[in-house]
């Protein structure tokens, strides 16, 4: 369902990715591993079309980056959940409002939003903390909230960019287990990390990226 064909992108000041050939199946769990600056984030940004390839193309579901319109990118992103190292939660909104945001975008009714947010928070173990603001939550809780926000729109794939970067080893391990649960329910996961120790031995595909090129998949 994700297909990257001869993908290249170079930033003006250097860096980027080149000649990336990669594909991922619908229910696959894959780790994208590589040191800082190797091109992991660039690759993820190309997949969710925050950057458009200079060479090659990205196919994600029914969407092809070749000649894609801005509006189609928005619709494509509704099928993709994103989790970031720095959470990207809105500090001036409580947990409920943060998690509900994607549902407002899709146009869900008020009642549906209330039900789905409650279920989603229960699922990530944050039930009862709806009125808490991000600053009142621990790093692990914020990351789980971020996962809940990504999951609430029932995406086909989750792209996680160093989601454990700010977490302690125990919480990081719990987050991976949580991703595995999500994956078992049929959502593809592509998680970028520079921490090989965290992901080794979990039986998932590992895609290694160095200096903007895939070394091993």
């Amino acid at each position: 369902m994700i297909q990257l064909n001869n993908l290249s992108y170079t930033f003006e000041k250097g860096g980027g990715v080149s000649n990336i050939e990669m594909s991922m199946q619908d229910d696959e769990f894959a780790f994208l591993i590589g040191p800082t600056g190797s091109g992991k984030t660039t690759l993820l940004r190309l997949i969710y079309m925050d950057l458009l390839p200079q060479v090659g193309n990205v196919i994600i579901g029914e969407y092809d980056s070749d000649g894609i319109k801005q509006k189609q990118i928005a619709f494509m992103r509704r099928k993709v959940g994103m989790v970031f190292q720095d959470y990207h939660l809105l500090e001036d909104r409580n947990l409920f409002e943060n998690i509900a945001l994607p549902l407002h975008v899709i146009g869900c009714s008020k009642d549906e939003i209330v039900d789905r947010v409650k279920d989603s928070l229960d699922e990530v173990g944050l039930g009862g903390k709806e009125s808490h603001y991000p600053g009142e939550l621990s790093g692990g809780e914020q990351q789980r909230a971020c996962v809940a926000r990504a999951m609430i729109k029932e995406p086909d794939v989750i792209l996680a960019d160093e989601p454990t970067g700010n977490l302690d080893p125990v919480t990081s391990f719990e987050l991976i287990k949580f991703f595995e649960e999500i994956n078992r329910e049929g959502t593809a996961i592509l998680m970028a990390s520079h921490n090989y120790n965290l992901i080794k031995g979990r039986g998932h595909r590992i895609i290694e990226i160095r200096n903007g090129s895939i070394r091993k998949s």
Partner: protein
Amino acid sequence: MDKLAFLLSEGVKNLWRHKLTSFSSIFSIFLTLIISGTLIIVSQNTSKVIEYLRDKYKIEVFFKNEITFEKVEEVVSNINKINGVRSTTVISKDDAEKIFKSQFGEDIMKIIGYNPLPISCVVNIVKDDTKTINIASIINKLKSFQEIDEINYQGRIISRIEGYYQLFVRLMTSILIIVFFISIFTISNTIRLTIYAKEKLIESLQLIGATRSFVKAPFIIEGILIGFIGSALSSLLLIGLLEFSYDLIYTYLSFKIEYDIKLLILTLCSLSIIISFIGSSRATARFLK
């Protein structure tokens, strides 16, 4: 419906979070609308004001003593043909005697034994022409009649008032244009500040699949709300002032101000929506990539 409610509430929150900048935008749109409203009322009353002033035009023409009434009638029919003349009223020697008696309470025949008052004619000017009337040209034409001895008129003062009136309208229009653009600029700046403050929200919305119009909508709504508040305040002030000054103007000038409240409010609201929509669209187009 819930989506619209969400976008509306976001717009209101934006407005509330930036009270000070929103206030400056509201004030600027308020000023624009006050000037526009004044112009609307002035234009609604333009014909009445001109009619009122021209009603005061009285060109009095005195004929030479030796001219017969029949000759006067002939001259007067020619005066009626002059461009800008609405009507004429001939005052015979007998009528003049009666007017003298009513004005001074004396019978001139008893005082000097004969009637020295000449036949005269009051020349009335057209009232409903929106263009400024050239009184000088009418006077020159009247002077060309040999039968006329003297001409009395207050045309210069009235022409001057008409000139000032036209100048006032032109000045107000120029100020309106300037303030119109200042309002657009101020609203645009307010929205720009909101956009900067909401950078994180915008980024999040874009990442979770919000379309460009969904991201823009709260900012446009914020702009329209600013316009709406500005138009409500200016409408209230203008209507209040009109109600207050209506009787005052009528008492001193016998002039009834004409205004259509519905039209006034509708025009101010439409104008405010146009200004705020242009202002906020400009900001979102420039700063929301």
